């Protein structure tokens, strides 16, 4: 009797958890079990970050066997942050990463707008061939071409400079196609009206197309900044001096140092420094982030 009551109670609780199931399946067990499994997995998915938060604020003396505990066992202290702050130049790394990510974005916004307009609105010979030249670049991502690209960067005198990290990304096939799609959705009549008013091509792009394609620009900006904020291998190849390191490269060498000392709390604090900017952005604009990444098929 009691067990049955519990079972019904459990089912009710589940039904309350999943009020959004399609009506047809609401009384079936499998979708509910699936939902329950996904709830468990979602908790599991954020566990590393939960540990990071707890460990970063835990005093160093509590390291060792209890280090893995996910329950904060003392008042949070800033000790690990101070240590991490002192042993690596995180402000510098953050500045370098910001320069790289936003510098790339600034140039990309110009190149993809111009190229996107050309593919969306102009008829010209060789259009199809050029389209494939762009399309192929989606696969030939700079990461795959690290070896010859490094040679090119050195030849241009950009080795060990932030500009060298940025340059290969100044054109974006993905961005070009995204803008092409957005521009094609804009009625030609608007452009024709501007044309009658005597607007030049650049003026029409700037004052007719760009403002109407804002959502596409935002989507592209989020994906572009995120992927270059997170990039590791290419800057690792290009950058030599510690002062020019971006966050990812700085964090990797910082982690290597602290790993030897088994300073897990300090590593957690350092990792938090690196994750925090994007995490805050995500918390503030969750829907925008998610929508942008849906449109980002290929970065």
């Amino acid at each position, binding site marked *: 009797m009691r067990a049955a009551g519990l079972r019904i109670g459990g089912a009710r609780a589940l039904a309350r958890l999943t009020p959004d199931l399609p009506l047809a399946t609401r009384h079936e067990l499998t979708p509910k079990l699936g939902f329950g499994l996904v709830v468990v997995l979602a908790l599991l998915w954020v566990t590393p970050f939960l540990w990071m938060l707890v460990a970063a604020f835990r005093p160093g003396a509590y390291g060792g066997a209890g280090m893995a505990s996910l329950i904060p066992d003392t008042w949070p202290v800033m000790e690990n942050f101070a240590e991490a702050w002192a042993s690596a130049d995180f402000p510098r790394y953050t500045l370098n990463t910001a320069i790289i990510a936003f510098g790339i974005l600034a140039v990309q916004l110009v190149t993809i707008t111009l190229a996107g307009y050309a593919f969306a609105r102009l008829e010209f010979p060789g259009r199809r061939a050029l389209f494939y030249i762009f399309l192929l670049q989606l696969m030939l991502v700079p990461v795959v071409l690290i070896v010859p690209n490094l040679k090119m960067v050195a030849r241009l005198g950009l080795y060990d400079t932030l500009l060298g990290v940025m340059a290969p990304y100044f054109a974006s096939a993905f961005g070009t196609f995204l803008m092409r799609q957005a521009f094609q959705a804009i009625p030609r009549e608007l452009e024709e009206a501007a044309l009658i008013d005597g607007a*030049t091509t650049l003026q029409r792009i700037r004052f007719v197309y760009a403002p109407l394609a804002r959502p596409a620009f935002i989507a592209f900006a989020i994906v572009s900044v995120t992927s270059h904020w997170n990039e590791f291998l290419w800057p690792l190849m290009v950058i030599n001096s510690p002062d020019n390191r971006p966050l990812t490269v700085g964090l990797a060498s910082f982690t290597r140092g602290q790993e030897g000392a088994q300073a897990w709390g300090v590593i957690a604090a350092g990792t938090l420094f690196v994750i925090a900017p994007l995490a805050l952005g995500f918390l503030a604009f969750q829907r925008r982030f998610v929508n942008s990444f849906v449109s980002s098929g290929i970065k």
Partner: protein
Amino acid sequence: MTDLTHPGYVRPARRATRRAGAVPGSGIGQGGLALVLLLPSLIILALFTYGPLLQLGWDSLQIRQGAGAGGATVFAGLANYEAVLADPSFRRALINNLIFAIVTLVPSLGLALVFAMALARSSRLNSALRSMLFFPVLVPLVAAASLFLFIFLPGVGLLDHYLGRLVANPPNWLGDPDIALLSIAGVTIWKNAGYYMLFFLAGLQSVPPESYEAAHLDGATPWQRLRYVTLPYLKPTIAFVAVIALLNIVTQVDHVFVLTKGGPSEATNLVLFYIYQQAVESYDVGRASAATVLSLLALLALTFASLGTLERAFGGRAA
């Protein structure tokens, strides 16, 4: 906004009615104007995609004379390719990469599909769960690796601390050559499943609800609904996500640098890591180039096999 919520690949490409000459380019004609507008992008593509591609082919046929980074090189035919193909480390990296691809691809896509199906309807709870599953996508892979360094730590690490209560002898996650590659794959799955989930969420929108109702009235079990209703509708999405996932598998090896550096005994040496080692640690540009060419050929084969998928994604047929 529709462009963002419904990715292009589920949407038929918008065919703009073309009225040639409706918007003439000033003076120089549309061809000249197009060239001017495309020029900035083309210069960058020439400098950092197609130029390096030629350089790569050239370098892969050169062999270095003498020691050091700046030594002179001579033409050596296919010697680098022979050397790379005969190099046990490269073969190992290639096999590792294949295993890595399989053990990563299938669970990533499977989990992404499960996530998407469970969280397809919009509700406050579901969007919170989606965000939790998506969050690792935003985190740099090296930062994730820094956390997993502790998670995988033998004895006191997060995994052993909790799993140790259930299992008597948890394996040495990164130290055991038989397990290490799977641990690396686990990090990749954790990192990317939430990304692929987004595509399945979008894809599920294309399944008409009536199909589910009809299947339900016909007495279809949940598995039958999955097999005969959901999966057929999702076919193009699955193909598309598989291409992206494979590309990510080849290009995202950052965690190997932090977690294992290719070890133990080359168990986690992946092709891109091998290329890096040859170029940066051994200064053997010839070999690194030959290995790059070989992996590019594999990637290009994949591209051409999936060109249809990509074209649909970006409306190439209208070009």
